[in-house]
């Protein structure tokens, strides 16, 4: 009978082992599959089928799943010096996003900087009287001068009306002096004691926790962007921000583009996949895959039939822009942007046996400059993976805006006055004339193709068959923006190219008469190859100008880029930025006539600072 208790022990031990193994935290790939429990979704009907989409009215930075792997970015010393603070970041698996991501990362996507604390408190239902000043990260690095600049009415207040600043003044002034300033306004105090303006709230240390946000009158009404170095605050450092749903952001997330159906899930044993719809902003979204090509094959729309969305777990692509593009070796997982540039959606686990696929999202760091400061650009999307939705074969998913495949074999129509020598410029095999002066690479490094060089100047962000609305420029020129490069239909050269096609004159007449034009019509009259041909002619003229300025190689490429975006009269030191403060022209460290990796050099930073 003593045998039975022994057997019981063995059985119990076995059961325990099985239970422990069963419940052991699974491998990273498997853990992503729990995401669906965490991601609220909403259903949308499309072609009598249901598609599940994230419910942005319920999703916030605070309730997104945590990061699933470690990572870091070490900012070079030159960047730290140029900014005045350290951009470096480290994160670990399991860390929540709001402690890693910063306001500046979303400066040109979600525009979090337009919020003020009152807006956020309204949405998150917070009582700002109950929140300590310490909870606002950026408060600690604001000086009295910064606060007076951010809150214009502050200078008119007597010091005792602003308890945290009164405490700060008390901490740095002798008692005798304190008595002399107690009845003065802040403006008067600062004008009498200029050094006091440079004292920062951070000097109060733990005392900051004793004051409420409302103890600085006007603080909660000032937009976040009014504060110095606002972009360096983490999302968690802004009270309530992590509870704001994505659909209530200043520039809310929405759904755009095409919906595709998952036909088949393929595992990583697949190789040589050319018809892809995945990639990155710099490389476009048709990056082919050579090996380890786990992917989902899509169906549904004709444009998506048989196309592959490659798993970013197995394929990396070039990412990022500007100086920061060099982070993470310049690489990010391949994927798409159905929800815009705030984050990237990546196909992750592909389970061929069960026909299931998980997706993940990746974020990036940005340090935008704006109109008067250096724009360091953005890193590749490499902060992740964050588990997102999972799907099964036959389910639908949002693919986002579609690009037209580059039709390199499309015949090139000749317009009146355009010689065959020019038309040859569109061929990949013979570099365009303007490229001869740019391609100064060592033979060993090889030379980039015409398309690759053009893509550096004009990234392919728009569909090749894009037809814009009928517009006028305010100077009596009216027409439609056509194709990938936004060629205006009123330009004589563009009109000549279209008219050279059968039916082209009628097509132009319809454009001029403001008639509706379908995207599908454009390739018949202005195919992508013709668009590229016209772009090359434009760039050739700009190259000649840059050559006359004595430039060559990468410097010439940078100048051509600048002239293309900003016009022929732009000075060499100018940065072309749009209304959002996003630099459109890029500096030479981001451009390369040779296929070599980018590096972060002191020179490139000086260029960026310019």
């Amino acid at each position, binding site marked *: 009978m003593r045998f039975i208790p022994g057997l019981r022990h063995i059985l119990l031990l076995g059961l325990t082992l099985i239970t422990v193994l069963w419940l052991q935290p699974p491998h990273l790939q498997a853990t992503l599959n729990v995401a669906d429990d965490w991601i609220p979704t909403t259903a949308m009907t499309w072609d009598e089928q249901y598609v599940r989409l994230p419910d942005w009215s319920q999703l916030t930075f605070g309730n997104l799943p945590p990061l699933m792997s470690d990572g870091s970015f070490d900012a070079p010393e030159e960047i730290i010096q140029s900014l005045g603070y350290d951009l470096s970041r480290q994160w670990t698996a399991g860390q929540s996003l709001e402690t890693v991501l910063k306001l500046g990362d979303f400066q040109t996507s979600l*525009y979090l900087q*337009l919020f003020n604390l009152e807006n956020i408190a309204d949405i998150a239902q917070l009582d700002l009287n109950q929140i300590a000043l310490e909870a606002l990260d950026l408060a600690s690095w604001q000086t009295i001068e910064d606060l007076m*600049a951010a809150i*214009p009415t502050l200078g008119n207040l007597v010091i005792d009306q602003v308890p945290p600043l009164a405490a700060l003044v008390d901490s740095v002034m002798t008692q005798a002096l304190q008595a002399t300033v107690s009845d003065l306004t802040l403006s008067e105090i600062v004008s009498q004691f200029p050094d006091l303006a440079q004292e920062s709230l951070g000097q109060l240390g733990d005392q900051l926790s004793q004051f409420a946000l409302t103890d600085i009158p006007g603080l909660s009404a000032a*937009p976040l*962007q*009014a504060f110095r170095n606002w972009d360096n605050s983490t999302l968690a450092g802004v009270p309530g921000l992590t509870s704001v749903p994505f659909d209530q952001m*200043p*520039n809310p997330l929405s759904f755009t583009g095409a919906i595709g159906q998952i036909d088949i899930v393929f595992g990583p044993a697949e190789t040589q996949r050319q018809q892809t719809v995945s990639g990155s902003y710099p490389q476009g979204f048709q990056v082919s895959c050579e090996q380890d090509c786990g992917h989902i094959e899509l169906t549904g729309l004709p444009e998506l039939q048989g196309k592959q969305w490659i798993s970013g777990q197995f394929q990396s692509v070039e990412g990022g822009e500007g100086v920061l593009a060099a982070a993470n070796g310049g690489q990010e997982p391949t994927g798409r942007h159905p929800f815009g540039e705030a984050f990237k959606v990546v196909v992750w686990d592909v389970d061929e046996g069960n026909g299931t696929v998980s997706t993940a999202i990746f974020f990036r760091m940005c340090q935008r400059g*704006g*109109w*008067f400061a250096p724009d360091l650009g953005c890193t590749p999307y490499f902060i992740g993976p964050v588990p997102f939705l999972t799907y099964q074969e036959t389910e639908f998913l949002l693919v986002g805006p579609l690009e037209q495949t580059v039709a390199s074999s499309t015949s090139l129509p000749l317009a009146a006055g355009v010689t065959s020598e020019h038309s040859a410029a569109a061929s990949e095999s013979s570099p365009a004339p303007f490229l001869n002066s740019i391609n100064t690479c060592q033979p060993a490094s090889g030379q980039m193709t015409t398309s690759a060089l053009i893509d550096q100047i*004009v990234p392919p962000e*728009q569909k090749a068959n*894009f037809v*814009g*609305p*009928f*517009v*006028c*420029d*305010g*100077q009596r020129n009216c027409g439609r*923006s056509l194709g990938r*490069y*936004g060629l*205006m239909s009123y330009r004589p050269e563009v009109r000549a190219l279209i008219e050279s096609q059968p039916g082209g004159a009628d097509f132009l007449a319809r454009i001029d008469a403001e008639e509706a034009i379908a995207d599908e019509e454009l390739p018949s009259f202005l195919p992508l190859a013709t668009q590229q041909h016209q772009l090359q002619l434009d760039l050739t003229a700009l190259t000649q100008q840059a050559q006359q*300025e004595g430039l060559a190689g990468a410097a010439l490429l940078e100048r051509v880029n600048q*002239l*293309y*975006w*900003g*016009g*022929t*009269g*732009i*000075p*060499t030191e*100018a940065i*072309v*930025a*749009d*209304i*959002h*403060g996003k630099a*459109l*022209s890029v500096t030479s460290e981001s451009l390369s006539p040779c296929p070599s990796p980018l590096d972060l050099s002191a020179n490139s930073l000086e260029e960026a600072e310019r």
Partner: protein
Amino acid sequence: MKRLFRYRIILLAVLLIFVSVGILYARSPQPSWKLAREAAPSDLLTQVVADNFHPDITVDAGQMSVLKLQQAGQSQPLYLIDARLVDSETQPLCGAAGCAMFAYIRDQSVFRQVLATYLDPHLQPGQTLLQPTGDLHQGLPTLVAMQLVEADLQQITLAFDGQTYVIDRLDYLPHE
């Protein structure tokens, strides 16, 4: 007699309305874009060229357009400058990003640039590229820029933060 009295009252009311509208209109004339040589001081135009054009370019800055804004309560005029040259075949500061727009205020003996950006001038008829809202922020008028971004019409409100103009609000408007 009673009827005549009623007519007089109506006539008086109509007259009052006309006079009121006339006074209001005279008090707040709508600012309009003018040729730079007519609306901007010559030293400002010299500075705009020096600040924003390549030194090898010869440009008649007087051909640019200027909107001089001086609203009630505004401490000093704001000069909005559309760098496009009126009736010119070439536009030195127009490229794929759009055309350059600047704003300047006087800062003691020189002018200070408070806005420098590119705006795509292509808009649907009836839409205005850049105009003041009538509000002031930190002593200067708030501005509204319209931009078509593919299928979206963006309305971008810009406010002066004491140093430069910054985006204060972003709205999407229905169009077409």
